Protein backbone atom coordinates (compact mmCIF):
# COMPACT_ATOMS: atom_id res chain seq x y z
CA UNK A 1 0.00 0.00 0.00
CA UNK A 2 1.28 3.42 -0.95
CA UNK A 3 0.73 6.02 1.74
CA UNK A 4 0.15 9.72 1.53
CA UNK A 5 2.70 10.88 4.12
CA UNK A 6 0.72 14.04 4.86
CA UNK A 7 -2.36 12.11 6.02
CA UNK A 8 -2.22 10.17 9.29
CA UNK A 9 -1.18 6.65 8.42
CA UNK A 10 -3.55 5.08 10.93
CA UNK A 11 -6.40 6.77 9.10
CA UNK A 12 -5.29 5.42 5.74
CA UNK A 13 -4.96 1.84 6.97
CA UNK A 14 -8.19 2.11 8.98
CA UNK A 15 -10.01 3.16 5.82
CA UNK A 16 -8.52 0.22 3.93
CA UNK A 17 -9.66 -2.15 6.70
CA UNK A 18 -13.14 -0.63 6.72
CA UNK A 19 -13.34 -1.25 3.03
CA UNK A 20 -12.44 -4.89 3.61
CA UNK A 21 -15.15 -5.13 6.27
CA UNK A 22 -17.79 -3.51 4.07
CA UNK A 23 -17.00 -5.69 1.07
CA UNK A 24 -17.01 -8.79 3.26
CA UNK A 25 -13.38 -9.60 2.57
CA UNK A 26 -13.19 -9.48 6.36
CA UNK A 27 -16.55 -11.18 7.20
CA UNK A 28 -18.63 -10.39 10.32
CA UNK A 29 -17.13 -12.20 13.31
CA UNK A 30 -14.00 -12.97 11.28
CA UNK A 31 -10.57 -12.81 12.86
CA UNK A 32 -8.47 -9.79 12.03
CA UNK A 33 -4.66 -9.88 11.83
CA UNK A 34 -2.90 -9.23 15.15
CA UNK A 35 -1.39 -5.81 15.78
CA UNK A 36 2.11 -6.93 14.87
CA UNK A 37 0.93 -8.80 11.80
CA UNK A 38 -1.02 -5.77 10.67
CA UNK A 39 2.13 -3.65 11.09
CA UNK A 40 4.18 -6.10 9.03
CA UNK A 41 1.46 -6.54 6.41
CA UNK A 42 1.18 -2.82 5.77
CA UNK A 43 4.79 -1.97 6.60
CA UNK A 44 3.81 0.46 9.34
CA UNK A 45 4.95 1.19 12.85
CA UNK A 46 3.41 -1.21 15.44
CA UNK A 47 2.19 1.73 17.55
CA UNK A 48 0.31 3.03 14.54
CA UNK A 49 -1.19 -0.43 14.04
CA UNK A 50 -2.32 -0.51 17.68
CA UNK A 51 -3.90 2.91 17.22
CA UNK A 52 -5.91 1.59 14.25
CA UNK A 53 -7.54 -1.15 16.32
CA UNK A 54 -8.26 1.30 19.12
CA UNK A 55 -10.02 3.50 16.63
CA UNK A 56 -11.97 0.66 14.97
CA UNK A 57 -12.98 -0.65 18.40
CA UNK A 58 -14.13 2.79 19.46
CA UNK A 59 -16.32 2.87 16.37
CA UNK A 60 -17.72 -0.53 17.28
CA UNK A 61 -16.36 -2.22 14.17
CA UNK A 62 -14.27 -4.79 15.95
CA UNK A 63 -13.72 -6.19 19.40
CA UNK A 64 -10.65 -7.58 21.10
CA UNK A 65 -11.16 -10.78 23.07
CA UNK A 66 -8.48 -11.14 25.69
CA UNK A 67 -5.83 -13.60 24.60
CA UNK A 68 -7.76 -14.47 21.46
CA UNK A 69 -7.16 -11.57 19.11
CA UNK A 70 -9.34 -9.03 17.39
CA UNK A 71 -12.55 -9.95 15.60
CA UNK A 72 -14.82 -8.08 13.20
CA UNK A 73 -18.12 -7.19 14.82
CA UNK A 74 -20.97 -9.64 14.28
CA UNK A 75 -23.40 -6.73 14.27
CA UNK A 76 -24.33 -6.71 10.58
CA UNK A 77 -26.45 -3.64 11.12
CA UNK A 78 -23.34 -1.75 12.22
CA UNK A 79 -21.53 -2.90 9.11
CA UNK A 80 -24.48 -1.80 7.02
CA UNK A 81 -24.29 1.61 8.67
CA UNK A 82 -20.56 1.76 7.94
CA UNK A 83 -21.28 1.09 4.30
CA UNK A 84 -23.74 3.98 4.24
CA UNK A 85 -21.27 6.28 6.06
CA UNK A 86 -18.53 5.47 3.58
CA UNK A 87 -20.86 5.88 0.60
CA UNK A 88 -21.95 9.23 1.97
CA UNK A 89 -18.38 10.34 2.37
CA UNK A 90 -17.60 9.29 -1.20
CA UNK A 91 -20.69 11.14 -2.35
CA UNK A 92 -19.58 14.28 -0.48
CA UNK A 93 -16.23 14.21 -2.21
CA UNK A 94 -17.92 13.63 -5.57
CA UNK A 95 -20.35 16.49 -5.12
CA UNK A 96 -17.78 18.94 -3.83
CA UNK A 97 -15.56 18.09 -6.83
CA UNK A 98 -18.42 18.80 -9.24
CA UNK A 99 -19.33 21.95 -7.39
CA UNK A 100 -15.73 22.95 -7.87
CA UNK A 101 -16.32 22.58 -11.62
CA UNK A 102 -19.38 24.87 -11.33
CA UNK A 103 -22.07 22.18 -11.74
CA UNK A 104 -25.38 22.51 -9.91
CA UNK A 105 -26.98 19.67 -7.93
CA UNK A 106 -29.48 18.91 -10.67
CA UNK A 107 -26.78 18.86 -13.32
CA UNK A 108 -24.73 16.54 -11.17
CA UNK A 109 -27.63 14.08 -10.79
CA UNK A 110 -28.25 14.15 -14.53
CA UNK A 111 -24.59 13.53 -15.29
CA UNK A 112 -24.49 10.73 -12.79
CA UNK A 113 -27.48 8.98 -14.31
CA UNK A 114 -25.96 9.10 -17.78
CA UNK A 115 -22.69 7.69 -16.46
CA UNK A 116 -24.46 4.88 -14.62
CA UNK A 117 -26.23 3.95 -17.86
CA UNK A 118 -22.98 4.01 -19.80
CA UNK A 119 -21.38 1.73 -17.25
CA UNK A 120 -24.33 -0.68 -17.42
CA UNK A 121 -24.06 -0.92 -21.22
CA UNK A 122 -20.39 -1.76 -21.00
Amino acid at each position, binding site marked *: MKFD*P*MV*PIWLQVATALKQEIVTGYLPPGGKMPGGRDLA*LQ*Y*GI*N*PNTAARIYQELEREGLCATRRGMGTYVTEDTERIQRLRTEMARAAMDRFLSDLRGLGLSGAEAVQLLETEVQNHAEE
Partner: protein
Amino acid sequence: MLKSEDIVRRFGAKTAVDHVTLSLEAGHVYAMLGPNGSGKTTWMKMAAALMKPTEGRMLFQGAPVSVESRRHVAYMSTEPYFYSWMTVRDAGRYYDDFFEDFSMSHYEELLRDMELEMSMKTRTLSSGMAAKLKIALTLARDAQVYMLDEPFNGIDLLARDQIRACILREATPEKLLLLSSHLVEEMEAIADRAVFIRQGKLIEVCDLEQLREQRQQSMADRYREIYGHAEVAQ
Protein backbone atom coordinates in the same frame (compact mmCIF):
# COMPACT_ATOMS: atom_id res chain seq x y z
CA MET B 1 16.03 3.65 27.93
CA LEU B 2 18.72 5.69 26.19
CA LYS B 3 19.38 9.18 27.37
CA SER B 4 21.93 11.91 26.79
CA GLU B 5 22.29 14.61 29.41
CA ASP B 6 23.65 17.90 28.14
CA ILE B 7 26.11 15.98 26.02
CA VAL B 8 28.89 17.69 24.06
CA ARG B 9 31.47 16.29 21.70
CA ARG B 10 34.19 18.43 20.21
CA PHE B 11 36.78 17.54 17.59
CA GLY B 12 39.43 20.19 18.01
CA ALA B 13 37.74 23.51 17.38
CA LYS B 14 34.66 21.90 15.83
CA THR B 15 31.66 21.03 17.99
CA ALA B 16 29.90 17.99 16.51
CA VAL B 17 27.30 17.56 19.25
CA ASP B 18 26.36 20.66 21.18
CA HIS B 19 24.62 20.27 24.57
CA VAL B 20 22.08 17.67 23.50
CA THR B 21 19.65 16.39 26.10
CA LEU B 22 17.60 13.64 24.55
CA SER B 23 15.65 10.78 26.03
CA LEU B 24 14.58 7.84 23.87
CA GLU B 25 12.03 5.30 25.10
CA ALA B 26 11.52 1.61 24.43
CA GLY B 27 8.64 0.64 22.17
CA HIS B 28 9.33 3.31 19.60
CA VAL B 29 11.03 3.58 16.26
CA TYR B 30 12.85 6.89 16.05
CA ALA B 31 14.02 8.51 12.84
CA MET B 32 17.05 10.69 13.48
CA LEU B 33 17.18 13.43 10.89
CA GLY B 34 19.51 16.18 9.86
CA PRO B 35 21.80 17.09 6.98
CA ASN B 36 25.24 15.50 6.76
CA GLY B 37 27.54 16.68 9.50
CA SER B 38 24.72 17.64 11.87
CA GLY B 39 26.00 15.25 14.54
CA LYS B 40 23.76 12.19 14.15
CA THR B 41 26.59 9.71 13.77
CA THR B 42 28.59 11.26 16.60
CA TRP B 43 25.58 11.03 18.94
CA MET B 44 25.07 7.38 17.98
CA LYS B 45 28.73 6.52 18.45
CA MET B 46 28.63 8.00 21.93
CA ALA B 47 25.49 6.00 22.67
CA ALA B 48 27.27 2.88 21.42
CA ALA B 49 30.18 3.64 23.81
CA LEU B 50 32.53 3.88 20.84
CA MET B 51 33.38 7.47 21.61
CA LYS B 52 33.58 9.38 24.86
CA PRO B 53 31.68 12.66 25.25
CA THR B 54 33.69 15.81 25.88
CA GLU B 55 31.04 16.94 28.36
CA GLY B 56 27.82 15.51 29.71
CA ARG B 57 26.67 11.93 30.12
CA MET B 58 25.15 9.21 27.99
CA LEU B 59 23.00 6.80 29.95
CA PHE B 60 21.62 3.38 29.08
CA GLN B 61 18.91 2.32 31.52
CA GLY B 62 20.11 4.86 34.02
CA ALA B 63 23.79 3.90 34.02
CA PRO B 64 26.54 5.50 31.93
CA VAL B 65 27.18 3.59 28.71
CA SER B 66 30.24 1.36 28.80
CA VAL B 67 31.71 -1.83 27.45
CA GLU B 68 28.98 -3.56 29.46
CA SER B 69 26.12 -1.72 27.71
CA ARG B 70 27.48 -2.86 24.33
CA ARG B 71 26.05 -6.25 25.20
CA HIS B 72 22.55 -4.81 24.86
CA VAL B 73 23.02 -1.97 22.40
CA ALA B 74 23.47 -3.02 18.78
CA TYR B 75 25.05 -0.37 16.61
CA MET B 76 25.46 -0.50 12.85
CA SER B 77 27.90 1.95 11.31
CA THR B 78 27.48 3.51 7.88
CA GLU B 79 30.66 2.03 6.44
CA PRO B 80 31.39 -1.67 5.96
CA TYR B 81 34.00 -2.86 8.41
CA PHE B 82 34.56 -6.58 7.85
CA TYR B 83 37.97 -8.21 7.79
CA SER B 84 38.97 -8.88 4.21
CA TRP B 85 39.31 -12.63 4.75
CA MET B 86 35.75 -13.05 5.95
CA THR B 87 32.91 -14.82 4.23
CA VAL B 88 29.29 -14.10 5.16
CA ARG B 89 29.48 -17.19 7.38
CA ASP B 90 32.68 -16.00 9.10
CA ALA B 91 31.06 -12.65 9.84
CA GLY B 92 28.13 -14.45 11.49
CA ARG B 93 30.49 -16.62 13.54
CA TYR B 94 32.36 -13.52 14.62
CA TYR B 95 29.17 -11.96 15.99
CA ASP B 96 28.25 -15.30 17.53
CA ASP B 97 31.62 -15.38 19.31
CA PHE B 98 31.26 -11.91 20.78
CA PHE B 99 27.56 -11.32 21.39
CA GLU B 100 25.53 -13.62 23.64
CA ASP B 101 22.31 -12.27 22.13
CA PHE B 102 23.28 -13.20 18.56
CA SER B 103 21.17 -15.97 17.02
CA MET B 104 22.64 -17.98 14.18
CA SER B 105 19.21 -19.23 13.08
CA HIS B 106 17.79 -15.72 13.01
CA TYR B 107 20.85 -14.70 11.01
CA GLU B 108 20.14 -17.46 8.49
CA GLU B 109 16.54 -16.27 8.13
CA LEU B 110 17.63 -12.69 7.58
CA LEU B 111 20.19 -13.79 5.00
CA ARG B 112 17.43 -15.63 3.14
CA ASP B 113 15.30 -12.49 3.16
CA MET B 114 18.22 -10.44 1.91
CA GLU B 115 19.23 -13.01 -0.71
CA LEU B 116 22.74 -13.46 0.63
CA GLU B 117 24.69 -16.72 0.69
CA MET B 118 26.84 -17.99 3.55
CA SER B 119 29.71 -18.74 1.19
CA MET B 120 29.94 -15.21 -0.29
CA LYS B 121 33.18 -13.35 0.38
CA THR B 122 32.64 -10.02 2.13
CA ARG B 123 35.48 -8.52 0.10
CA THR B 124 33.68 -9.05 -3.21
CA LEU B 125 30.18 -8.01 -2.10
CA SER B 126 28.59 -5.11 -3.96
CA SER B 127 27.95 -2.06 -1.79
CA GLY B 128 24.26 -2.94 -1.64
CA MET B 129 24.96 -6.50 -0.53
CA ALA B 130 27.49 -5.33 2.07
CA ALA B 131 24.86 -2.93 3.41
CA LYS B 132 22.34 -5.79 3.68
CA LEU B 133 24.90 -7.97 5.43
CA LYS B 134 25.50 -5.29 8.05
CA ILE B 135 21.77 -5.07 8.69
CA ALA B 136 21.39 -8.85 8.92
CA LEU B 137 24.25 -9.10 11.42
CA THR B 138 22.91 -6.30 13.57
CA LEU B 139 19.29 -7.43 13.58
CA ALA B 140 20.22 -11.06 14.27
CA ARG B 141 21.09 -9.85 17.75
CA ASP B 142 18.35 -9.86 20.33
CA ALA B 143 19.42 -6.48 21.67
CA GLN B 144 17.40 -3.92 23.61
CA VAL B 145 18.52 -1.01 21.49
CA TYR B 146 19.25 -1.04 17.76
CA MET B 147 20.93 1.96 16.22
CA LEU B 148 21.19 1.79 12.46
CA ASP B 149 23.18 4.56 10.83
CA GLU B 150 21.96 4.99 7.24
CA PRO B 151 20.46 1.52 6.78
CA PHE B 152 19.11 2.37 3.30
CA ASN B 153 22.43 3.59 1.90
CA GLY B 154 23.41 1.67 -1.21
CA ILE B 155 20.22 -0.38 -1.13
CA ASP B 156 18.15 -0.31 -4.28
CA LEU B 157 14.52 0.70 -4.37
CA LEU B 158 13.17 -2.85 -4.55
CA ALA B 159 15.20 -4.16 -1.65
CA ARG B 160 14.22 -1.27 0.63
CA ASP B 161 10.80 -2.85 1.27
CA GLN B 162 12.60 -5.97 2.46
CA ILE B 163 14.84 -3.97 4.76
CA ARG B 164 11.87 -2.09 6.19
CA ALA B 165 10.08 -5.37 6.87
CA CYS B 166 13.14 -6.80 8.63
CA ILE B 167 13.47 -3.68 10.77
CA LEU B 168 9.77 -3.70 11.66
CA ARG B 169 9.98 -7.30 12.84
CA GLU B 170 12.32 -6.16 15.61
CA ALA B 171 10.06 -3.30 16.67
CA THR B 172 8.51 -4.74 19.81
CA PRO B 173 7.31 -2.87 22.92
CA GLU B 174 10.49 -3.81 24.82
CA LYS B 175 12.91 -2.54 22.21
CA LEU B 176 14.15 0.81 21.03
CA LEU B 177 15.05 1.42 17.42
CA LEU B 178 16.89 4.45 16.17
CA LEU B 179 17.38 4.92 12.44
CA SER B 180 19.21 7.69 10.70
CA SER B 181 18.82 8.21 7.00
CA HIS B 182 18.85 11.00 4.50
CA LEU B 183 16.20 8.99 2.62
CA VAL B 184 13.47 10.55 4.75
CA GLU B 185 10.56 9.09 2.76
CA GLU B 186 11.76 5.55 3.46
CA MET B 187 11.10 6.05 7.16
CA GLU B 188 7.71 7.83 7.04
CA ALA B 189 5.64 4.72 7.70
CA ILE B 190 7.97 2.70 9.94
CA ALA B 191 9.03 5.41 12.37
CA ASP B 192 6.61 6.87 14.89
CA ARG B 193 8.85 9.61 16.20
CA ALA B 194 11.37 11.93 14.62
CA VAL B 195 14.43 13.56 16.17
CA PHE B 196 15.60 16.65 14.30
CA ILE B 197 19.20 17.76 14.77
CA ARG B 198 20.85 20.79 13.23
CA GLN B 199 24.51 21.75 13.59
CA GLY B 200 24.94 19.57 16.63
CA LYS B 201 21.89 20.95 18.42
CA LEU B 202 18.62 19.18 19.11
CA ILE B 203 15.77 21.03 17.39
CA GLU B 204 12.81 18.86 18.37
CA VAL B 205 11.45 15.39 18.93
CA CYS B 206 8.00 14.94 17.45
CA ASP B 207 5.29 12.32 17.10
CA LEU B 208 4.76 11.71 13.40
CA GLU B 209 1.06 10.85 13.48
CA GLN B 210 0.44 13.97 15.55
CA LEU B 211 2.37 15.99 13.00
CA ARG B 212 0.14 14.64 10.24
CA GLU B 213 -3.06 15.13 12.22
CA GLN B 214 -2.42 18.53 13.68
CA ARG B 215 -0.32 20.20 11.03
CA GLN B 216 -1.11 18.09 7.97
CA GLN B 217 2.62 17.69 7.53
CA SER B 218 4.68 14.70 6.59
CA MET B 219 8.07 14.11 8.18
CA ALA B 220 9.65 15.27 4.91
CA ASP B 221 7.59 18.49 5.04
CA ARG B 222 8.78 19.19 8.55
CA TYR B 223 12.31 18.43 7.44
CA ARG B 224 12.05 21.01 4.67
CA GLU B 225 10.58 23.51 7.06
CA ILE B 226 13.40 23.08 9.58
CA TYR B 227 16.35 22.89 7.26
CA GLY B 228 15.15 25.05 4.39
CA HIS B 229 14.95 24.13 0.73
CA ALA B 230 18.66 24.54 0.08
CA GLU B 231 19.54 21.77 2.47
CA VAL B 232 16.95 19.16 1.51
CA ALA B 233 18.75 15.95 0.81
CA GLN B 234 18.48 14.16 -2.50
